[in-house]
Structures are given as structure tokens and as C-alpha cells.
């Protein structure tokens, strides 16, 4: 299924490649990190930061921007790479990831990084803040500005997420779009064994949300879902959720095969291989 223009697709695919490479560079700089999740969500972030979001790279505080809220603070390295791909921060700054005095801490914080809207990390906070922003924009007559919140499947364990899900529908926040990364893994193991939260579509639908579920690593599907969501976004309509099934470490076979994917430790000699595999995969895709 694709009605996406090939040029657009190629442009966003290139951005996704750059984001993944940025993630690997940050991982290599630290030797470890939440690299698996970041590689898995790269396609979604490429679609957001290099296609759909309205923002000004040179003016991150521009009041007319769409908001993209990263609840999952540990995905920060993915967002930093997306901010670099979008021109908000310099690409070379990625090498300071998690270093002392860096603007790019291990867990994302609004107070540190230009373009980072909230301080994530304590999970279950993002959707509530998104509700407030969507309501706040609407009450000021700015309901055409969209509020996106990227959360994870593990985050759906938190009751506060469901308080916010109820609230978003109660207030008919059609300017709010949640994106859930369903990578199936959390700190203690497989999500289905830690605290099963399927069936996802039914749960969100029961809370009054419009639901799409896609393969979050199929870029054409991601772009289509974003297009549908943007077209459906009515200021007093139902809130929307895009459920994205993603593959941890997607695009880098040497990392995909690792077992402890929640917090990856990678040997120094593996990073160059990872980058070669990423590039080879991307070039293969192009052909």
C-alpha cells in the first residue's frame, strides 16, 4: 500500500538513514545506550521532523509551531538525531551525547535542549501535558497547531496515561495525535509478560480515540498514517492515535540479533560494522 510520492519517500528515507547514523554515532560515543529503541523509531521521527511537523529550525521557540512531546526520555538520542536532521541542532553536537556539560543528556529534558518540548523520563507524563497544550492552544484560538506525543508501549503500564487518554476524548482534542511505539520490550522483559496491554486498538477505541495501527518501519505506511491523521485533525474532533509496531535496532542486523536490547552494550569493534550494515541496507533499499 502506498500512494506516497516517490521523491517524498526518498527524501524521508534519507532522513531516516541520517537519524539512524546519528544514533549510532551517539551510541559509539558513549559505548552503550538505548540504541535499539532509537533505531526502531527512526522512521517515525524522520516522517515527523523532516516532513510533517511545522517548526522553524532556526527559531525553536517559534510560537506557531506544532508541538512534539517525547514522553520517553530515554529515547532522547533518537530525538537529538532527528533535531540534527531537521537543522535545529548542529550534527556534530551529537558526539557530545550524555557527556558532561552537554546540551544532550542521556534522558531528554526541555531545560537542556533546543526543540525538546518536555522533560520526559518519568513515564506516563507526556500525554497529560499534551492534553494541556492541546486545550491551551485551542482556548487561545490556535487549535490548528497540532500536538504530537510519542510514547512507548511500556508507558501504557502507567495509569496516568489512561487518565490523559480519557481526558483527551472528554475534551474532544482533535488537535492531539498520540504515537505509540510498540516495540514489545521493556526493562524487565517482553511487554506481554511484564504487563500485557493488548489489544491496543480496542483499548484506544474504547476510550474514544480514532486509531490507526501500522508497521512503524514501513516508511510509506508511516507517512500515510501521518497524512491521514493530519487530514482528520478537527479542532473539536476525536483525538487520534497511531500505533506503530516497530522492530528494535531496525536497520542494523548485528544489533537486531542481540538479546538484551533494552539497554544495549556494544563492543567497540562492533560500531564500525553496525554503521557499514546500516549504510549497506540503506543503499540496497535505494536500488
Amino acid at each position, binding site marked *: 500500500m502506498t500512494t506516497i510520492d516517490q521523491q517524498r519517500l526518498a527524501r524521508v528515507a534519507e532522513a531516516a538513514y541520517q537519524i539512524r547514523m546519528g544514533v549510532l554515532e551517539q551510541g559509539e560515543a558513549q559505548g552503550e545506550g538505548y540504541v535499539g529503541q532509537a533505531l526502531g523509531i527512526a522512521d517515525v521521527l524522520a516522517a515527523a521532523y523532516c516532513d510533517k511537523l511545522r517548526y522553524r529550525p532556526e527559531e525553536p521557540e517559534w510560537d506557531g509551531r506544532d508541538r512534539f512531546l517525547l514522553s520517553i526520555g530515554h529515547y532522547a538520542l533518537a530525538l537529538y538525531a532527528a533535531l540534527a536532521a531537521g537543522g535545529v541542532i548542529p550534527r556534530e553536537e551529537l558526539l557530545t551525547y550524555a557527556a558532561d556539560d552537554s546540551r544532550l543528556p542521556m534522558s531528554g529534558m526541555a531545560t537542556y535542549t533546543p526543540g525538546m*518540548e518536555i522533560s520526559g523520563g518519568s513515564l506516563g507524563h507526556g500525554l497529560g501535558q499534551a492534553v494541556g497544550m492541546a486545550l*491551551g*492552544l485551542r*482556548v*487561545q484560538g490556535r487549535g490548528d497547531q497540532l500536538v504530537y506525543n510519542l510514547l512507548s508501549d511500556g508507558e501504557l503500564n502507567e495509569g*496516568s496515561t489512561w487518565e490523559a487518554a480519557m481526558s483527551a476524548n472528554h475534551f474532544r482534542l482533535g488537535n492531539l495525535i498520540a504515537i505509540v511505539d510498540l516495540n514489545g520490550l521493556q526493562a524487565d522483559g517482553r511487554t506481554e509478560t511484564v504487563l500485557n496491554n493488548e489489544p491496543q486498538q480496542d483499548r484506544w477505541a474504547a476510550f474514544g480515540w480514532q486509531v490507526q495501527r501500522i508497521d512503524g518501519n514501513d516508511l510509506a505506511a508511516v507517512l500515510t498514517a501521518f497524512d491521514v491523521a493530519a487530514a482528520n485533525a478537527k479542532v473539536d474532533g476525536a483525538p487520534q492515535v497511531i500505533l506503530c509496531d516497530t522492530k528494535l535496532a531496525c536497520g542494523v542486523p548485528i544489533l537486531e540479533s542481540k538479546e538484551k536490547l533494552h539497554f544495549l552494550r556494544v563492543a567497540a569493534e562492533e560500531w564500525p560494522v553496525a554503521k557499514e550494515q546500516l549504510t549497506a541496507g540503506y543503499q540496497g533499499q535505494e536500488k
Partner: protein
Amino acid sequence: MSQPKRSAAMIASIADAGVKTTSAPFGHALNALAAVDDRVVGLTADLSKYTDMHIFAAEHPDRFFEMGMAEQVMMGAAAGMAAVGLVPFATTYSVFATRRAYDFLCLDAAEPGLNVNIAAALPGLTTGYGPSHQATEDVAILRGMPELTIFDPADAVDVEAIVPAAAALPGPTYTRLLRGHVPRVLDEYDYTFEVGKAKVVRPGSDVVIVSSGLMTMRALLAAEKLAEHKVDVSVVHCATLKPFDEETVVAEINTPRLALTAENHTVVGGLFESVASALVKRGIGKQVHAIGLPDAFIEAGALPTLHDTHGLSTDAVVRRVLAELG
């Protein structure tokens, strides 16, 4: 069997007999502020009628948001609203604002330094419902939160001044809200509320009581009664508990007078310990007697009985001062 005292716990008045009151000063002050500042919005977690937010809701239905019994999302949403340029005031009871929603006030509002204003009714021991509703440790919970300003108003005069002051501060605030028919006593004294300042409301040569919240009202009433015993009592009111005005308080305590603190809160982690810390930092070994709640879950019952049992009533303050004078 004696006739049970009507507890009417949730609406129990804190006004002593003969003290004049003002109805819903918070709601009216919020309306006055909203009339001149269109950034002001109100939220509540299913407690508008019990926090005087209903006054604002009636006047500004388009700027009022009923969040339901969902304190976590209320705090997060208030932070989100502040992040897009609004000035939210959010109300619930103190127990829920502190125990249930701490993480959300801390990380969503305080860490980014957002203008989120929490007005929390039933602070300390102001209901007879028992520990589920008695926020006897709310200040202790919140004092360690960076960036947060904590107000403990004595009466309606303070509440009316705190609302615009809280909005004018760039960061988050927590106000120990007095609601309903709120005593008005500070207008009888030469007193003006100032953020971050302790004020000598009443001078006195024999005893100094450093107090906050409704205990300032009780201390002032007790001071009048103690005058009949030829005891001259000074009352120093700390309407802002954080940041704490250590300079003023230490200067008032560090005199030959008998010194006490008086707070509607456990003696753990509140006003008494703020004073003690200020003294120790300066190497001052002055004895200070603490009037406050015990480190215990308080029993259910009629509020006047509980206040008398635990030393917060006007008469209990009088008895305590006389006892300490020996």
C-alpha cells in the same frame, strides 16, 4: 451518653466565635485577576465547589476546565497550558495534590519552572475526616521540591493578595488554601502581604510566636487573651514558607523572649524545622517550643475537638504559652 458533637467535617469552620469572615475569597480574587489578565485559566479535579473554584467557573465557563478525579493529568495539563502561555490555577485537596500527584507537579511544572499555581484546600488538619483527607504533612512533602514557592495564608486578606502574587511569579506555586467562610483578621493590623517575607503582625515584649497559616489567626487571638494575663505576645507571620525569610525570623527569635512556633502541620518537616534550621546555621542555640501536630495519623472527629486535643485551638495556644512561661 452525651450528645455527639456535630462534626460536619468537610465544611467545618476554622473561624473562632465572633471572628468576621469573607465568603470564598479565592474564587473572587481569581475572578478579579481574570478580569485583567486573559491568560488566567482554572482547573479542578472534581472539587470546584469545595475549593471555591466554582465562583470562577460560573464567571468564566470558557476558561474553566473540569478535569475529573484525575489529579495526575490535572497537574500535567496545567503544565501543558502554562507551556503554551496560559496562567493556570488548579485546585484539589492538599492530600491529593501532594501525596497522589507529586511526581507530576515536580517534573511537569517545577523542573521546567512553569507558571502553574496549585491552590490546595484542607491543608494540615482542617477536616475531621481522618488521614485520607488530613494533609498533616503536605509542607513536609513539598519543601524539598526545588523551584516551588509555598504559601500558607492566615486568612482572607492573605488569600486575596496571594492569588495575583502567584500569577506574577514566573515559577510554580502551592497555596494552602482556606476556603468557604474564611476568617478575616489581618486587616485589623498594620500588615501587608509580601512574597517571601515574614512580618511582625503584632509586637510584644514577653513572648514571640512565629506562625503560619491559620495558626497566625489563632496566635493573634491567643495574644489578646494572654494580654488579660499580663503577658505581652508578639506574632510573626510567615505567609511564605518557601523561600523562607530566615533573616526576619531569626532576628525575632534570637531575643530574651520565650519563643514558639505555631503551625497547622506536623512538627516534622514544616515551619518548626525551617526555624530550627535557620537558627542552627547561624550557631544560635535558642530553645524554641513547637506548637503543631504530632508525628502521627490524626483521629477522625469534630474539628474543634481535634484542634483543642492537638494544641491548635486558641485556648490551647493560651494554655501552652502560660505553661511554658511556668
